């Protein structure tokens, strides 16, 4: 489903964010990305969303070469991917409800469908009482949960979660990880980047370890080793 072939990303001649990375992810897989800060995790996910182009090598999503994707195919690609961004990337002029609904509006869902799916997802992320707040009125953890809800609501085939629990307390962290596991069981591919040792070790899923842009380990039932 997802293939990286000798992918490098060079932001600046002396900033090599990703170096010669190759791996494959099959449908329904649950993959953890670990690595120190600056190791290249976010960069890897950006290449998948076609937010950045690879400097070398190729990135495939369902046989499609994302490296040279046409502008008008971009929305179609991105609608299949639910992304939780490390910096949330919420729409500041939209309320919590509108932010989450936006992901559904984008795929052309009707208002009835949005109304139908919204309560459940709000309940899951525990934001039912904050629907009309704007992002600036939310705490870091609340924003993160809005971002998670937005990534999930339209039931994408793949979820890219970049540090989705970085700002959450242990209680909410556990909730979100359980949720990701459940979604994965229903058949959604999940790529989770995290610093959280406990989470990785308790998951017992595939772990790709990055160090200074290079993949130094890729284990089927990995552990958090840096």
């Amino acid at each position, binding site marked *: 489903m997802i293939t990286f072939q000798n992918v490098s990303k060079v932001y600046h001649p002396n900033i090599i964010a990703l170096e010669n990375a190759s791996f494959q992810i099959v449908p329904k897989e649950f993959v953890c990305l670990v690595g120190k800060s600056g190791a290249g995790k976010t960069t890897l996910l950006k290449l998948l969303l076609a937010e950045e182009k690879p400097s070398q090598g190729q990135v495939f999503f369902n046989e499609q070469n994302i490296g040279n994707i046409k502008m008008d195919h971009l*929305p179609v690609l991105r609608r299949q991917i639910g992304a939780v961004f490390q910096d949330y990337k919420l*729409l500041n002029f939209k309320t919590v409800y509108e932010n989450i609904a*936006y992901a559904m509006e984008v795929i052309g869902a009707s208002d009835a469908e949005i109304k139908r799916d919204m309560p459940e997802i709000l309940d899951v992320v525990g934001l039912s009482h904050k629907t009309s707040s704007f992002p600036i009125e939310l705490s870091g953890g609340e924003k993160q949960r809005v971002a998670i809800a937005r990534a999930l609501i339209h039931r994408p085939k793949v979820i890219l979660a970049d540090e989705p629990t970085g700002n959450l307390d242990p209680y909410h962290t556990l909730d979100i990880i359980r949720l990701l596991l459940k979604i994965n069981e229903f058949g959604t591919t999940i790529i989770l980047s995290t610093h959280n040792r406990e989470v990785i070790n308790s998951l017992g899923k595939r772990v790709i370890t990055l160090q200074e842009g290079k993949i130094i380990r890729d284990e089927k039932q990995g552990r958090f080793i840096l």
Partner: protein
Amino acid sequence: MFVLIKRIFITGWHGITRDGGMITANIFIMTMAIFMISSLFFFRDLSAFLVANIQERADVSVYFKNDAIEEDILKVKREVGSIPEVKEVNYISSEEAFERFIERHSSNPVLMESLAEVGTNPFLASLGVKAFEADQYAGVVGFLENFQFNYLIEKIDYYERKPVIERIYGLTAAFSRVGVIVSVILILVAVMITFNAVRISIYNSREEIKIQRLVGASNLFIKGPFLVQGAISGFFSALICFLFFALLAWGLDTRAEFLFPGFGLLSFFIANLWMILSIQILSGIGLGVVSSFIAVKKYLKV
């Protein structure tokens, strides 16, 4: 598709209500531009109306002395009728003038009484002269004043109307000249300001736009709201402008009546209500959409 259009409108509306500030200046200048544009149309119609109205009535009346005989008057009529600028000449005898007066004022007892008191027919025989163009009257009058049958003529009634006609011509010409220039300037300024407002709005939303792209929003869904924003400010400017027009028409009604007798500004406004409203709304929305379109085209690269 309908859902998409609806959402584009809602998003555009939110862009205005939640971003505020900028829109006020935008609406203000747009209102002025629309005001100018619609004034041009309004005045063009108004002056056409006035001139047609007055041209119909604007004849030179030549009143003959009491002792002038009909034969001479008819001779004068033929002479005047042969002037190339003259469209038609009507002879009204003193009896006819008398009858017409009675016909017109029979319901006015005061006038009738005073007429009865006079006892005789106080009306003079006259020729009504119509020229083809209003600016030919001066020539016609000049001809009559230096006429060989001058001694038959009691008075030439033209000078009373001349200033009115000239006032209208002067005003119309001056207004359309100045109006066109001012309109063009205001349109340019309005387009520039709206364009700038949308540009700034795009600039302020650049993070939002990036995010919208990242979650897979289509071009139309991202760009549409900016066009709607322009259209909405144009629409509101048009409404404000229309209210302003209505107030002016109402407030200046009596003054206009004084300036141009027989003309009702308010009733003219009411008669042309739909035309004025649609010109204003169309030019408002047009201005808004065109300027936003240019800004989006230029600054919202996809």
